[in-house]
């Protein structure tokens, strides 16, 4: 198993380098340093300001190979934009935010907690609600109830998340005052601010989740082992809640583990509406303030998490499915 993990990690290295390359292309080749500087400096910067900014950010250096002699009279061929960019990301020496003037790494450590307190409960709760419901619908597959449930799922999926949030916040927090409208508190007091965002996150995802889990269950119901169990005279409840549920865990697991990075992204919109100072909020601020270093770092970190997540998925397959081996 150790060897398998090692091999997967080694195989992931080119992908990680590819992600670094993509971010380099996006922020250095497609966007010119001049354009970035102008956006960052705001309204009508002078030519001198732009130039100073570009020099201060090392964006006047050659793209790939530095052939000029440095101040010490020696060659520094790797002192170029490309190599500095790669070094920054690969060695986790993240740059400073252009807007907040703090290291991105330090910012992340502060922002990750509120995001996790919002998304982890929402994520667990939505599995806990959607999975049993899906089993229930699968039990009544082909009946009127099944068709109505599917139709309701499609309706729930057709409402844009903005509407869930706007109407939910207005009705439950403003009109009925069940929840605080806005704000956050670090520590245990956070729960009362998180309750409504969590409920809305679950509600917004319910239709899609339910339909997905139902499809998974129905695929399993058609499998041979179900027919065998039926022939043996096992009751339908037992087949569904024991055999099918266990086997359906594999596709469920894939989606679950692969969505872990998105847990940390938080829900951009939920954080924005409810004033939760997490990663989503940080991302939106970075967008509005043209804070390129923050976005660049976030792209890289999330990709790392995603890649790690997919390796974890493959490992967890072997733990739940004896047919899958480490070969």
């Amino acid at each position: 198993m150790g060897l398998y993990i090692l091999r997967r990690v080694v195989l992931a290295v080119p992908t990680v380098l590819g992600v670094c390359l993509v971010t380099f292309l996006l922020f250095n080749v497609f966007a010119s340093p001049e354009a970035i500087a102008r956006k960052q400096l705001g309204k009508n910067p002078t030519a001198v300001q732009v130039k100073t900014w570009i020099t201060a950010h090392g964006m006047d250096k050659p793209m790939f190979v530095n052939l000029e002699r440095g101040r010490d009279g020696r060659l520094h061929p790797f002192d170029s934009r490309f190599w500095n960019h790669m070094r920054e990301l690969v060695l986790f020496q993240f740059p400073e935010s252009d807007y907040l003037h703090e290291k991105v790494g330090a910012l992340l450590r502060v922002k990750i907690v509120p995001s996790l307190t919002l998304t982890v409960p929402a994520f667990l709760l939505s599995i806990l609600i959607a999975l049993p419901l899906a089993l229930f619908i699968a039990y009544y597959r082909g009946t009127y109830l099944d068709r109505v449930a599917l139709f309701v799922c499609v309706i729930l999926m057709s409402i844009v998340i903005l509407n869930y949030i706007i109407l939910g916040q207005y009705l439950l927090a403003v009109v009925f005052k069940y929840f605080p409208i806005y704000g956050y508190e670090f520590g245990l007091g956070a729960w009362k601010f998180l309750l409504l965002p969590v409920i809305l996150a679950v509600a917004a995802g319910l239709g899609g989740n339910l339909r997905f889990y139902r499809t998974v269950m129905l695929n399993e119901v058609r499998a041979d082992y179900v027919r065998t169990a039926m022939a043996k005279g096992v009751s339908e409840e037992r087949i569904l809640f024991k055999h099918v549920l266990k086997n359906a865990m594999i596709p469920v697991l894939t989606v679950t583990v692969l969505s872990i990075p998105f847990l940390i992204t938080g829900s951009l919109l939920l954080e924005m509406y409810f004033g939760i100072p997490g990663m989503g909020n940080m991302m939106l601020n970075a967008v509005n303030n043209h804070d390129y270093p923050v976005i660049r770092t976030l792209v890289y970190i999330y990709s790392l998490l995603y890649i790690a997540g997919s390796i974890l998925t493959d490992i967890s397959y072997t733990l739940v499915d004896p047919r899958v081996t480490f070969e």
Partner: protein
Amino acid sequence: MAESHLKIAARRIRRDRIAKAAFLVVCLFAAIALLDVVPVPRHEAGGLRLDRTALDALFQKEVEKSYSPPLAGTGVLNRHEFPLKSRHLLGTNNLGEDVLYNALKGVRTAFIIGIVPSVLAAFFAVFLGLFAGFYGGRIDDAIQYVYQVLSSIPAILLLIAMLMVMERGLWQLCVALGVTSWVGLCRLIRGETLKVKNMEYVEAARALGASDLRILLRHILPNVMYLVIIEMTLDFSGLVMSEAVLTYIGLGAEPGTGSWGRMLMTADRELPNAIWWNLAGASVFLFLLVLAFNLFADSLRDALDPRLRKD
């Protein structure tokens, strides 16, 4: 082959009442979008001008001072009533614009966002998927590497990053959405090509001396097209909704482009003041189009996908 595929699908959809109704709603929206494309010439001092569409000619109203409720005779601005220049079926927004007109203007944008990125993505996906599956080896490795890297970057972040370095605009948004959404389809097409390329009829074509290009375009492509059609219809709703969200967070098209997301931007400040019509207008249009397209797409997939056809 592809034709009979589509014929079978059309017959199945005609039998499905919900799908038929959904298709009619989509057609209605499409008609509104088309009205917003057809220019209506008008005479001005400088000569003939073509900057107004049929939709503008039919629905554009004079701009009022500020909010006014649906069908009201007066509006209120800073506690002072002001007379309206005309009646507004869905009232006016904070800038005094007719809400119904804004909502109708959003339809064309929705169709552009729902279709153009998927066409772009389908083009990439078909081209790369076919080549990867058909030639295998190094080409396959290279293409797989590219989509491995792109799919490792969470779509929302790649989108944000791309929109940050590009200029604002509807077409830029389409390109960004296209680039972030081709990988899934490419994987499917590659897999299907791998399956199809070893079938007897492909071998027969090769034995008859058909070139690679001919085999790819005439024999393999028609057999993977159903995947493209399914994917494009399934993507439509998601794309339309993501336009609303992206515009909402400030990454959408430039102001002046009709957009339901832009209409929703002021909604949370309006509701506590009992101004519901702006939110309602945008939401109902968005919901109806997305719901109709979802229902239609589901039915189309059930009809087209041979893997789902047996039961």
